[in-house]
């Protein structure tokens, strides 16, 4: 009887132990799956992420349109290395306002200059850029893409609303 009891105790102990191990394995597996899913979700988000709003990005350089144009006209390659793909905050006088299909393109610069800084605004900025006219002094934040005839900035937001 003692033997029997020991046996059944042993058996229930073994069952308890194997249940416990099973539980541990299950928890471990669930943990691994959770981590893998998290990695999967984060990677998926990164791959599909849209451009963040320029407003929230850290400004790399704050310059006047005049200074930017001068640097580009003196040494285009050096200026490109410095400014291309960077977030710039530009202060300048509005020379020209042009409407495109979805947004506005505003050229900043000096009235006598043949070249300017073209700022292509994000469509969400529509309401803010509505009232801008030549002669206004504005501050624009955007991404510099380089220079063709003018320095071209995209994804621009108006800073002094």
């Amino acid at each position, binding site marked *: 009887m003692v033997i029997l009891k020991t046996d059944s105790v042993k058996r229930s102990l073994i069952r308890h132990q194997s249940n416990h191990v099973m539980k541990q394995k299950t928890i471990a597996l669930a943990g691994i799956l959770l981590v893998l899913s998290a990695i999967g979700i984060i990677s998926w988000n*990164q*791959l*599909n*992420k*849209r*451009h*963040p709003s320029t407003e929230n990005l850290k400004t790399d350089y704050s310059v006047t349109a005049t200074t930017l144009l001068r640097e580009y006209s003196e040494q285009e390659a050096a200026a*490109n*290395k410095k400014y*291309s*793909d960077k977030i710039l905050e530009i202060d300048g006088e509005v020379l020209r306002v*042009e409407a*495109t299909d979805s947004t506005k*393109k505003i050229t900043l610069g000096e009235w006598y200059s043949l070249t300017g800084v*073209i700022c*292509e605004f994000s469509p969400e900025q529509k309401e803010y850029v509505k009232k801008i006219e030549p002669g206004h002094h504005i501050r624009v934040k955007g991404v510099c*893409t*380089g*220079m*063709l*005839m*003018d320095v*071209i900035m*995209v*994804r621009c937001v108006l800073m002094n609303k």
Partner: protein
Amino acid sequence: MKKIIAVAVSVFAITVSYAQERYFTKNGKVTFYSKTPMENIEARNSNAVSVLDKNTGQLEFSALARGFEFEKALMQEHFNENYIESDKFPKAVFKGKLSDVSKVDFAKDGKYNISVAGTLTIHGVTKDITAPGTITIEGTNILASANFSLVPEDFNISIPAIVREKIESNLRVEVLAKYQPMQ
């Protein structure tokens, strides 16, 4: 005195008429597309610069590599850092000519099928290219469009095997420009 005036007037007239032969835009649109079962890619540049000489048919078109906007930020980053290498090759340039410019009557509203031929330089590699297109005359404006396809590998753009299937072997390119007289 009369002679001087006559010469001055003719010089002035020639200068003015010459100037009116050139058309230009800073809002040229270049879009390229790729469609595979795995991924649809579309990138657009709305800041291309182009000059067109209506007498000779000569055409030049430039676009900044960094000016191509993709919906997905990471894809745009890969395009610039790994494929086009924008820091080394910031511009894509087309230099060429409308093959049959004489058949276009720029003075009258109308639509013409044309062909443009020249060289395209991307990623530091220059290739000959010919593309069909249309020219539409609307008053003083000239609307031009062209379509062609290109193979990234032709321009030494290497796309890693991992992503190669996500991109069409031939990318379709669409160019749109609304030219105005150069003043």
